[in-house]
């Protein structure tokens, strides 16, 4: 019996030990797994947290005091007119634009967006200064109290060059993002920029892997992470970082290049001011003056900048100096950097306010952008519900604007010099064109088709019009392609007629020989020589060059017909399209998908019109003070 107990004790002891070790191992594995998951979550899935959760507890209070009125600014060229309006100072100087309007403003740095939101909610300031996309991320928090719901009171600028996507050498177009690892600042201005890029290539966030960076720049910014982690394929950075990564100096990454920037995707990052509803309702006159003062400063700063670039301007130099003093030498090491900061953005001015808030069918207007930023906020999990902003209801027809500002009558003008664009596109070889291509998609057509209806191609027209609006500094080349079957057959017929090619065999099993030798891959060099020397030319009935020329002309005509259809589409849908942005061009038979089609189905794959969004030189664009 005792033996039985003894054996049972031993059994249990061993079980206990076994159970203990199993439990301990399981716990250890679980802990490791949890830690791994937590780190992965921190790096890859921070956006799963709502903005509210990221922000933590927030106190809501009333706005206290309007003199001085605390107004946030951020490190951006679009904020330089605010400095200027305030007398190139953080506090309003006598004689300055804001002073003359009876405002007393204290400018405060708002580069820490989350802190800005806390201050806004607490009533420390009635204004919030950020990009529209970032506001979208915070939209749920902002709308959480009736006092703090936001009125977008002003559209300041578009980023036009200051924000860049840098990729390793295999990243050439936006479509190459698929399956890649992308690093960008969490909650930063590039979230919306990336979202726009993905949409333009018809990709989704699930097509990429995201690594979040804590900061926009510096040791915890995407540039450093890109440099130190080979697994990151693309990073989103501001221009100084882009220059460092892609330049020849220290800190560069071999093969890295800017494959897209806001210089092309120039209507992606909109900078705005919003104002708390309680303050807006009770201080509309003050808000109006603030906006008018800013717009006045924009007009003057643009004129000074133009003067500075031609004959020099001491007043503009003062603004550059003030910018460096306010933002610090670390951010703005030289006055040239301050000038660069201003050049990285394009103002929308007074005409831009009208277009933004009032114009129907404006694809970059308030309604369109609001939809985009709220979609992004909800889809990415920054917000659980859609909480809209109010559009400005300021009276832009009042004397405060019309009698005060000077550039109120500026009309939209075409952005590109069409002849120069055409010259540029036609002069590009295929390789150079590929280098400049940002995006491409195409449609197919039937033999002899010369009309392109909305019913058949409406989806592609919509895509083109929308993307042309976003990529406002790039041009859509509408490239007509033809099938080469007929030209090839003319070469064969001309060759046989002239005795260069001989055919043997029976129908369905023919074989060619070239000057007596079987025509195979080894004949390539010889046949190129003969064609270049004109050996297949000179007979009237089979003229491959004439057929090729006709195909080229026809492809151009098709491209023109498509361009016209696209313009009609935009007009009939009340959508704005800059006609100079769409350039038809004929490619003919030069770039077939299938060089030797076996049947009509294969031939039809060659019959296509391709829409290529391409970068063009600054010389092909027409300079304009405002983009709206």
């Amino acid at each position, binding site marked *: 019996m005792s033996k039985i107990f003894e054996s049972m004790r031993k059994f249990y002891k061993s079980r206990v030990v076994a159970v203990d070790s199993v439990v301990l191992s399981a716990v250890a594995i679980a802990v490791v797994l949890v830690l791994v998951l937590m780190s992965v979550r921190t790096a890859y899935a921070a956006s799963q947290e709502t903005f509210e959760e990221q922000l933590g507890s927030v106190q809501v209070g009333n706005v206290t005091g309007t003199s001085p009125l605390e107004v946030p600014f951020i490190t951006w060229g679009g904020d330089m007119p605010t400095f200027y309006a305030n007398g190139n100072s953080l506090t309003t100087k006598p004689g300055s634009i804001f002073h003359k309007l009876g405002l007393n403003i204290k400018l405060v740095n708002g580069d820490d967006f989350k802190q800005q939101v806390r201050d806004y909610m607490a009533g420390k300031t009635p204004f919030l200064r950020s990009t529209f996309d970032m506001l979208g991320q915070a939209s749920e928090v902002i709308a959480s109290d009736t006092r703090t719901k936001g009125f977008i009171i002003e559209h300041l600028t578009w980023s036009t*060059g200051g924000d860049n996507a840098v990729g390793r050498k295999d990243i050439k177009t936006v479509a190459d993002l698929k399956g890649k690892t992308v690093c960008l600042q969490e909650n930063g201005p590039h979230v919306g920029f990336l979202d726009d890029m993905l949409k333009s290539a018809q990709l989704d966030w699930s097509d990429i892997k995201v690594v979040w960076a804590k900061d926009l720049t510096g040791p915890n910014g995407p540039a450093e992470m890109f440099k130190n982690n080979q697994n990151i394929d693309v990073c989103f950075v501001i*221009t100084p970082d882009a*220059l460092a990564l892609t330049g020849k100096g220290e800190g560069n990454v071999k093969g890295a290049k800017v494959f897209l*920037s806001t*210089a092309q995707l120039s209507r992606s990052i909109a900078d705005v001011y919003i104002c708390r509803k309680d303050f807006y309702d009770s201080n509309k006159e003050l808000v109006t003056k603030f906006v008018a003062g800013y717009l006045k400063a924009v007009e003057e700063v643009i004129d000074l900048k*133009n003067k500075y670039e031609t004959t020099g301007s001491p007043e503009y130099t003062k603004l550059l100096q003030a910018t460096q003093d306010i933002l610090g030498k670390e951010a703005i090491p030289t006055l040239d950097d301050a000038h*660069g900061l201003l*050049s*990285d953005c394009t103002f929308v001015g007074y005409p831009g306010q009208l277009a933004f808030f009032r114009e129907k069918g404006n694809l970059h207007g308030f309604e369109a952008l609001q939809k985009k930023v709220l979609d992004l906020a909800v889809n990415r999990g920054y917000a659980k519900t859609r909480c809209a902003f109010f559009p400005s209801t300021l009276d832009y027809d009042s004397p405060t604007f019309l009698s005060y500002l000077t550039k109120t009558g500026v009309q939209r003008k*075409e952005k590109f010099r*069409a002849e120069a664009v*055409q010259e540029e596109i036609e*002069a*590009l*070889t295929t390789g*150079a064109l590929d280098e400049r291509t940002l995006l491409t998609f195409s449609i197919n057509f039937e033999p*002899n088709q010369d009309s392109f209806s909305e019913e058949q191609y409406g989806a592609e027209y919509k895509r083109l019009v929308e993307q042309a609006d976003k990529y406002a500094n790039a041009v859509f080349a509408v490239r007509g392609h033809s099938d080469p*079957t*007929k030209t*090839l*057959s003319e070469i*064969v017929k001309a060759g046989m007629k002239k005795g260069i090619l001989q055919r043997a065999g029976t*129908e369905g099993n*023919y074989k*060619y020989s070239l000057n007596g030798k079987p*025509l195979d*891959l080894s*004949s*390539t060099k010889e*046949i*190129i020589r003969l*064609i*270049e020397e*004109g050996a297949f*030319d*000179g*007979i*009237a009935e089979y*003229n*491959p*060059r*004439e057929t090729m020329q*006709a195909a080229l002309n*026809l492809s151009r005509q098709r491209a023109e017909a498509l361009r016209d259809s696209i313009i009609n589409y935009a007009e009939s849908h009340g959508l704005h399209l800059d*006609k*100079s942005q*769409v350039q*038809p061009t*004929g490619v003919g*038979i030069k770039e077939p998908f299938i*060089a*030797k089609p076996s*049947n*009509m189905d294969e031939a039809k794959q060659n019959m296509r019109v391709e829409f290529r969004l391409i*970068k*063009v*030189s*600054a*010389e092909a664009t027409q*300079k304009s003070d405002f983009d709206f």
Partner: protein
Amino acid sequence: MKNIIRKLAVAICMLLILAPFFQPWSYAEDVYTDNVVIVLDCSGSMREPMYNTDIMKLNAAKSALKDVLKQVQETTHIGLLQFSAGNTSKEWLYPLGVKKDVEFMNAIDTPKPGGNTPLGKYMKIGADRLLQEREKQHGYGSYRLLVVTDGESTESPCPVDSYTQDIISRGIIIDAVGINMDKAHTLATKVHSYRSANNPGSLKKALAEVFAEVGSVKNDATGKEVFELIAPLPSEVAAAMLQALSASGNHPVGEKPKPKQEPQAQAGQDAQQVQSGATASQDHSAALLMWVIIGVVVIALLALLAKLTE
């Protein structure tokens, strides 16, 4: 008078002020046209009458060209190049461009028969002009050289063969019309079409046939037999054929192509873009300045004129 000049001055001033602000085309004008350069032999032998008539060969050619060209569409650009006329040293009687009937008819009446037959040289001049135009039109359009002659080249060494080969290898169609030639011109077997004309009627018919071919529309319909015809070609060879065919340049006939210069790649980064933007801005400023200077000069001249008429 003074008032008229003043009004004129104001109108010109307004035009000059507004000129720089006129918007250019929304998109590049459709630039392709059909282009035909006629190389007309005006050598001494063209003084002779056509068979069984007393009509001088050159006059018959002039008359036939006039009749035929009246029917040619205005969208076709025409150039008339002569060689060896005895009464003019002007080679281009009608420079390649839009056909204006009155000017063209006057131009064609000008030459009288003169010297020998430097055919090769003038085929090159005509073809070079067509290539120049093709460059301008970005390769679109159609390009034909029509040679109207009654004899072989008198050049030594004779460049006709090598030039002809080069011209047709560039995709320029050569049509030749031989007037009153006992045997076919040596061009006959080397060019795309050769027509013999031994009387004014056949000469007119030959020219009419050539112009009927100009700009003939080709469609991209492809029958089953065409796929069978090209089926034995290896795909790589087919691709190489297409590349070779479309690679002909627009450099002058008889010369080697110059290396192609790509347009400057666009500034991807703002620092470069700012620089380019400034350049564009300076170009615009320079253009404005030029207009202002022209305006001031014109106003000064008109003021001086007004003063003189007082």
